[in-house]
Structure formats: structure tokens, C-alpha cells
């Protein structure tokens, strides 16, 4: 929905899913999104929180690094995602995310939420919503 939300369709049992999410930069100066993308986030940024929501409820995900952008690397468990900035200069705010294969075992809808837990917010919440279709 707008800059905060990205919708994707994925076939059930698809493997090695890579997706891209735009994280909007937030300005505490005027209390609004700036229109720019947030740069500088990494998998181990302490204020980055990733949650997964689907039928069954909400799960907090751990974040792991991506060695090479564009080369799929399986997260170590299905409650983890791999996360890395694509490129500061030409793609500000675009992050690559690698998902565990088990996420796509069944039909349904899955939401991944990327949230800034800092008291002084530096980016807006961003959502990646997967519609998982039958084979």
C-alpha cells in the first residue's frame, strides 16, 4: 500500500525466494516521511525489528546477514530472514531479503513487518505481503 507496503505473489513450494522491500526514511523534524529511502540499515542494526504475521499468529524473526547481494543464502531457521541493503547510492532504501523455504509450504498470506524500535524514529514501518498460491 503506497510506499510502505509491497505485495508479491509466490507459488506454493517455491524455493530460494528473494524479495526486495523499500524502507521509507522518516524525519522527526516535521514528523513525516521524507520521500527518501532509509539507508544504512544492516541485519544487526539493534533497532530493526522484523515480525512475521500469518494464520496462526505473530512471530518475531531474527535477522541474518547476506554474504553476496543477489545470491540466495538460506536462513538457518524458518523464523529468520536474511537482510541486506542493495546499494546506498543508486537504490536508497531498497533492501534484499532471503526467506526460508518452509515459509512457502502452504497456501495463504504472510506479512513481514520491518519496524524501527528506536525512540527517535529514523524510518517508517514497511510491510512485505506474500500471497502464496497453489502450485
Amino acid at each position, binding site marked *: *500500500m*503506497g*510506499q*510502505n*507496503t509491497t*505485495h508479491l*505473489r509466490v507459488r506454493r513450494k517455491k524455493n530460494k525466494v528473494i524479495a526486495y522491500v523499500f524502507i*521509507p526514511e*522518516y524525519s522527526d523534524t516535521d*514528523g*513525516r*516521511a521524507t520521500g527518501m529511502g532509509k539507508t544504512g540499515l544492516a541485519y544487526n542494526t539493534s533497532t530493526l*525489528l522484523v*515480525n512475521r*504475521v*500469518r*494464520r*496462526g*499468529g*505473530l512471530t*518475531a524473526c531474527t535477522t541474518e546477514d547476506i554474504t553476496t547481494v543477489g545470491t540466495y543464502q538460506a536462513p538457518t531457521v524458518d523464523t529468520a530472514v536474511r537482510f541486506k541493503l542493495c546499494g546506498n547510492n543508486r537504490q536508497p532504501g531498497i533492501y534484499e531479503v532471503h526467506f526460508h523455504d518452509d515459509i512457502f509450504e502452504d497456501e495463504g*498470506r504472510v*506479512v513481514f*513487518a520491518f*519496524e524501527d*524500535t528506536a525512540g527517535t*524514529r529514523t524510518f*517508517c*514501518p514497511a*510491510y512485505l*505481503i506474500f*500471497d502464496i*498460491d497453489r502450485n
Partner: protein
Amino acid sequence: MAQNTSYIKVRRKQREVIAWVFIEQFSSTGSGGTGKGYEALADNDADLQMTRSRSGGNTTYNIQGITTIGTYQAPTDGDRIRFDLVQDAGCPGLYELHFHNDEFEDEGRTVVSIEDNASSRRFCPTHLVIDIEKE
């Protein structure tokens, strides 16, 4: 449609449909959306209005709550919808919707609009466009 619009596809006669929408906070200065999520809505909010538009006309939903996020709970009839905030922390502005099975009896397009009727607007209008495809 505008930036606060989300598109999903559902198969005809699909049962127990759950969806999620992001509701963006509106700027108190009247200058549009802030990019942040609006977190303070409940199913019994006096100024929350949800409308369904589809071939045949518009219907104002009667809004019901959700007991457990992620666990489908049927609305009590076809003109009702269930609505609740997923979680304050980690998913700001993300709301879960449960639809009555009758919504998906026929192919076509349904638009669900979420609107603030308060004179001092708190959140941006939000739309969920549902394409109901053949089984």
C-alpha cells in the same frame, strides 16, 4: 488508486479469508500522510467506518472484533467484518481483517474502504481491492 490501496486475489468459494492492511497516520497539520502507522483503532471506534463496494452497490459493514490474532473467526453475517490491530510494537498500523465466507461466492471485484469519520482526521483513507477469481 491512491497510495493507500492494496490489491489481493482470492479464489471463488475460498473459505475463512484473512487479510491485512496498513493504515497510515494522517498529519495533524493537514498535509497528508506521515508514513507512520496509525495504531489506536479498535473495532468499536465510533468514527471508524468500513464500506464494501461491488457490483450491486455499497454496504456499510457492521464491525466486529477478533478474539485472537491469526485465528479465523467468522463474522456473524455477510454484512459484517472482523477487524483488529495486530500488535502495537513491531507492526505499527497493521490491522487484520476476517471476511465472511459469503463474500467470495461469486467472481468479481470487491473494494473494502476504511475511513475516519472524525472531523479531526486521524488516519488516511485505506482501500483493499479484492479480485475474486474462478476456483
